C-alpha cells in the first residue's frame, strides 16, 4: 500500500463533537498553526451526532453557576467526581453553545429571546443538522480533514506522543502523521457487551455503534493512565426502539411506573430523590422492578394532550426518528398507552460516566504531547454535547500554549514499519489463513464473555469476584488469537481493528471492575460480594496503566479532591 507522511502542528484524531470544536478554537487562536483531523467516517455525519440532537443537556440555565453544576453532578455521580474538570467545563458551556448558535443551530427561544429550558440543565434545540454544522465550521476555519481514515495507533518517541498512523478505508493509503501536539477525541466504546437485539437490529444501540473504543485502546497500548472504567454507563431507553427517554421524562414530564402502576422510584428511592434520584439509580430502579417480577416498566404518558404528543414526535424526529416509526408500525398512541422502557447493555463512555484518560485540568493526558477531550476523557461525567465542546476548547488552548516548547519529532522508522505490518496483516491473510476468524465472530466471543461474566443485561448487571476472574481468564486468551483475524476488504479491515481495540478496552475494564471492592454506582457497577458504598476505603479514583513492553496492567488509586464545599450526596 502507498504510504503518505503528513506534517502538522496539531493533530486531532476524531472529527466529532469535541474534535470539531477544538479545530475551530485552534485556528481562531493560533491561525498560523496547521490543524489536521483524521476522521474514521465522513466528518459531516460521523459518530454520536449523525442522527441529530433535540436538546443541549448540560447548560447553565438562569440562576445556575458552575458551582451549582458541580454540586449536582457530584451528587448524581454518587459523591465521587473530578470536580476541577466538571467546573472547568461548566465555565465554557455558554461560550460553546453561543458559537454553535452563531453557526446556524436553531435553539428554541421564548418571545423575549431566552432559551427555553427542558429541565434544570437542558435547553431545546432543532439539532437534526448539528453534525454537518460543526463539520462545516471546522472546515471553514481551515482544518484539513482526512475522511475515512481508521487510526490504528499513536506514534511515540521517548515517552512522548509524536503523531499517529492509520489507513484509508477508500484506497488503503497508509498515513503517517507527524504532529507537535495530538488531541484524541474518538469517543467512547460500544460493542463491548452483547447488544439488546439480534439480527439486523444488533447495531440498534444507545451509543453510536461506530464508536468502538479506538482512542481508549491506543492510549492503553501506549501506556497512558486511565481512570474509572468501572463506572460503566447503562442507559434507560424506550423498549425496542432504544430511543432516549429524557425526551419523554423531561419533555412531557412523564413519571416511571411498574406493571402495578406504582411510582416505584418515589416509593422505594424517596430518600435519594425519587424520580430525581442520581442517574445510576434511575437505571437501577427499573432493573430491580423487572428482576423482582414487577415489570414491565413504563413512562406513563397516558393523558397527554394531542399537542403534547405531536411535540414529542417532533422532538424524536430531530434526534431518533425510529421511535416515531415504531409507534406507527405498532399502532401505539402514547396518549392512550404508556411507553415501555428497558435498560441497554453497558457502555464505556466518559461523557455520561467517567471512563477515560486521566487528565489534568487542561486535558493533558499522562503522555507528553497527548491531550484528550470528549467521551474519551475521564473523570468528568454529565458532559454530553456541550461538555465535549468545552473540553475541546480547553484542550485546544492548552495545546496552543504548550506547542511553543515542542518540536516536531519523527517516530523511528522501524516502529512505523511494524505498525504498518500490524495494520494490514489481516488483509493479507484473507484466503491464505486456514479457518480465519471473521471480525463478527470474534466480536461475538468477546461479547459472550462480557455479557455472562462481567455484568451484562442477563445477570441484571451484577457481578462478583469469581465471575470477573473467569472473565479475566477468558479474555486473556483472545490477544493470542488476533493473528487468526482476516479481512476481505478495507471495510472489514476496519472491523478487525475495531474488535482488536475492544479486547484491549475490555481487559482494562475487567481489571477496574475487580479492583473496586464496593458498590458505588448500582447497576453501572454492582458488586454482589461488596454490595454497599464504602467511603472509608473507596472514596478515590481507580486508575490503570498498561505497560507497553510487558502488557501487564498495573492498578493504582488517585485521591478525590473536593473543590466545591457542601454535602457530597445532596446537591441542595
Amino acid at each position: 500500500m502507498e504510504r503518505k507522511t503528513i506534517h502538522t502542528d496539531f493533530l486531532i484524531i476524531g472529527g466529532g463533537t469535541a474534535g470539531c470544536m477544538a479545530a475551530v478554537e485552534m485556528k481562531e487562536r493560533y491561525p498560523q498553526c496547521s490543524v489536521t483531523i483524521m476522521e474514521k467516517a465522513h466528518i459531516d455525519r460521523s459518530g454520536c451526532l449523525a442522527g441529530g440532537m433535540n436538546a443541549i443537556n448540560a447548560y447553565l440555565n438562569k440562576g445556575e453557576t458552575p458551582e451549582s453544576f458541580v454540586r449536582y453532578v457530584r451528587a448524581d455521580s454518587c459523591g465521587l467526581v473530578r470536580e476541577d474538570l466538571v467546573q472547568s467545563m461548566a465555565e465554557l458551556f455558554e461560550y460553546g453553545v453561543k458559537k454553535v448558535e452563531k453557526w446556524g443551530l436553531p435553539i428554541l427561544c421564548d418571545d423575549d429571546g431566552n432559551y427555553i429550558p427542558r429541565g434544570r440543565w437542558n435547553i431545546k434545540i432543532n439539532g437534526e443538522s448539528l453534525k454537518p454544522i460543526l463539520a462545516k465550521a471546522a472546515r471553514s476555519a481551515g482544518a484539513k480533514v482526512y475522511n475515512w481514515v481508521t487510526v490504528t495507533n499513536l506514534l511515540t518517541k521517548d515517552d512522548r506522543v509524536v503523531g499517529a498512523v492509520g489507513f484509508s478505508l477508500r484506497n488503503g493509503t497508509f498515513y503517517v502523521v507527524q504532529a507537535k501536539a495530538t488531541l484524541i477525541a474518538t469517543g467512547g466504546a460500544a460493542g463491548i457487551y452483547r447488544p439488546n437485539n439480534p439480527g439486523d437490529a444488533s447495531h440498534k444501540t444507545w451509543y453510536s455503534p461506530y464508536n468502538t473504543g479506538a482512542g481508549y485502546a491506543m492510549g492503553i497500548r501506549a501506556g497512558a493512565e486511565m481512570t474509572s472504567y468501572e463506572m460503566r454507563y447503562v442507559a434507560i431507553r424506550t423498549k425496542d426502539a432504544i430511543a432516549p427517554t429524557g425526551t419523554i421524562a423531561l419533555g412531557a414530564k412523564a413519571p416511571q411506573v411498574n406493571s402495578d402502576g406504582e411510582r416505584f422510584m418515589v416509593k422505594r428511592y424517596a430518600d435519594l430523590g425519587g424520580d430525581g434520584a442520581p442517574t445510576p439509580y434511575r437505571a437501577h430502579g427499573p432493573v430491580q422492578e423487572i428482576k423482582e417480577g414487577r415489570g414491565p416498566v413504563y413512562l406513563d404518558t397516558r393523558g397527554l394532550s394531542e399537542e403534547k404528543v405531536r411535540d414529542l414526535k417532533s422532538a424524536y424526529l430531530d434526534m431518533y426518528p425510529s421511535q416515531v416509526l415504531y409507534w406507527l408500525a405498532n399502532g401505539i398512541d402514547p396518549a392512550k398507552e404508556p411507553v415501555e422502557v428497558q435498560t441497554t447493555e453497558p457502555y464505556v463512555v466518559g461523557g455520561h460516566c467517567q471512563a477515560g484518560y486521566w487528565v489534568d485540568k487542561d486535558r493533558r493526558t499522562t503522555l507528553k504531547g497527548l491531550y484528550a477531550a470528549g467521551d474519551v476523557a475521564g473523570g468528568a461525567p454529565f458532559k454530553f454535547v456541550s461538555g465535549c465542546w468545552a473540553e475541546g476548547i480547553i484542550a485546544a488552548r492548552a495545546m496552543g500554549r504548550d506547542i511553543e516548547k515542542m518540536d516536531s519529532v519523527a517516530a523511528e522508522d522501524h516502529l512505523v514499519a511494524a505498525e504498518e505490518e500490524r495494520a494490514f496483516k489481516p488483509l493479507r491473510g484473507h484466503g491464505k489463513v486456514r479457518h480465519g476468524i471473521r471480525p463478527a465472530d470474534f466480536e461475538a466471543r468477546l461479547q459472550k464473555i462480557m455479557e455472562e461474566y462481567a455484568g451484562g443485561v442477563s445477570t441484571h448487571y451484577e457481578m462478583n469476584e469469581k465471575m470477573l476472574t473467569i472473565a479475566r481468564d477468558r479474555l486473556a486468551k483472545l490477544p493470542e488469537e488476533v493473528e487468526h483475524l482476516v479481512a476481505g476488504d478495507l471495510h472489514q479491515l476496519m472491523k478487525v481493528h475495531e474488535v482488536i481495540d475492544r479486547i484491549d478496552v475490555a481487559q482494562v475494564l475487567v481489571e477496574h471492575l475487580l479492583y473496586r471492592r464496593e458498590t458505588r454506582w448500582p447497576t453501572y457497577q454492582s458488586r454482589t460480594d461488596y454490595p454497599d458504598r464504602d467511603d472509608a476505603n473507596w472514596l478515590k479514583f481507580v486508575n490503570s496503566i498498561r505497560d507497553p513492553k510487558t502488557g501487564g496492567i498495573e492498578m493504582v488509586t488517585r485521591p478525590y479532591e473536593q473543590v466545591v464545599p457542601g454535602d457530597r450526596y445532596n446537591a441542595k
Partner: protein
Amino acid sequence: MPVWVDPEKCNGCNGSSQPPCLRMCPGDLIVKDHAENKAYLKYPEDCWDCLPCVKVCPEEAIEFHLSFQFGSKGARLIPHVPRKGSQITWDAVDLKGNKETFTIRTKIMQVALDEKVEGGAEAIDFSI
C-alpha cells in the same frame, strides 16, 4: 432491513464515484454498484437507523424500514429535505394509511453529489 435503496428510483447520482448516501453513512455501510449505477446497503446488520442517508438522497430513493422484529411492515416515515429554506418536513403514515405531517425548523446543509477522496491512489472498488 433498516434502510433500503429503491433501485427504481436510485440513479447512482449519475456519474458520482461516491454518492451522498455512501459518504454520509457513519458506518460506511452503503456502497455503489458502478456497473449497475445503483447504491445499496451492503451491511444491513450494522445499520444504526440514524437516517443521514435517507435525508441526503436527492432522489428520495432510500426508504426507512423498521426491523421486522420490532413491528409490522406498512408504516412509513419519509423526510423531505428541500434544497433551500430552513425546514424539514416529515410524512408519518400509520398502518391504516393515515398520514400526519411534521414541519420542523433546521439548517439546510448543502451536500455535493460527489467528492474526491484524499490520498494519492485511486479508490479501490470493493462495490461488487
